[in-house]
């Protein structure tokens, strides 16, 4: 059963058509002991089916431990939104822990569009000049964990 309605799929197709560059969704999962991994995979499958510029790569946290570690992922389900057209680990870190359902789906979509725009060099990050200036001087690791709840 599809999670997205046909009108929603159509709207998403149109939105994703505007993607200037390909985006890779790295999906981290495990077979046992993960209640929402299946749901997350279904959502991602439906999403990537809507655009040729979206690819999905699955990494098993248990079987591909080293690969998951290289991406800095230690929990599932997790999604990293990375620039497409490359096999390399993407240092730009935009990640989601948990199934991207409800409002998180919109956040994921925003992340995809942002990464796509930047990959092409087409867009600036969606931040003001002041914020960009503040960020420009940061040369040490900043780890942001944003806690949200589904709505």
């Amino acid at each position, binding site marked *: 059963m599809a999670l997205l309605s046909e009108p929603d799929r159509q709207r998403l197709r149109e939105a994703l058509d505007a993607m200037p560059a390909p985006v890779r969704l790295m999906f981290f999962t495990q077979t046992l002991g993960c209640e929402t991994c299946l749901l997350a995979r279904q959502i991602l499958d439906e999403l990537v089916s809507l655009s040729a510029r979206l690819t999905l790569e699955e990494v098993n946290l248990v079987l591909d431990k080293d690969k998951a570690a290289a991406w800095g992922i230690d929990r599932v389900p997790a999604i990293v939104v990375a620039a497409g057209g490359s096999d390399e680990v993407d240092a*730009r870190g935009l*990640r989601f*822990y948990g199934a991207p359902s409800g409002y998180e789906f919109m956040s994921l979509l925003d992340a995809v569009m942002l990464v796509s725009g930047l990959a092409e060099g087409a867009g600036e990050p969606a931040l003001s000049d002041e*914020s960009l*200036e503040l*960020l420009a001087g940061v040369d040490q690791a900043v780890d942001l964990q944003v*806690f*949200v709840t589904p709505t």
Partner: protein
Amino acid sequence: MALANPHVRATIVEATEFPDLARQYRVTGVPKTVVNNTTEILGALPEEMFVRQALQDLEKVTEDSARDKPPAG
């Protein structure tokens, strides 16, 4: 922020799916942002305010660069 600077990593954590993390960081309301496991930002702030708070522990670095050019050394 994570896309503007490669040193920045942003993770959206679904609190109900990861109750252990929510407990560890004492998440009682959302959105709550934890910076480098220590600094906490509660609620949604105007963008520049959020960036400032997120970077406040790195204040030296950011102020130097925000004010003209950083002094040599």
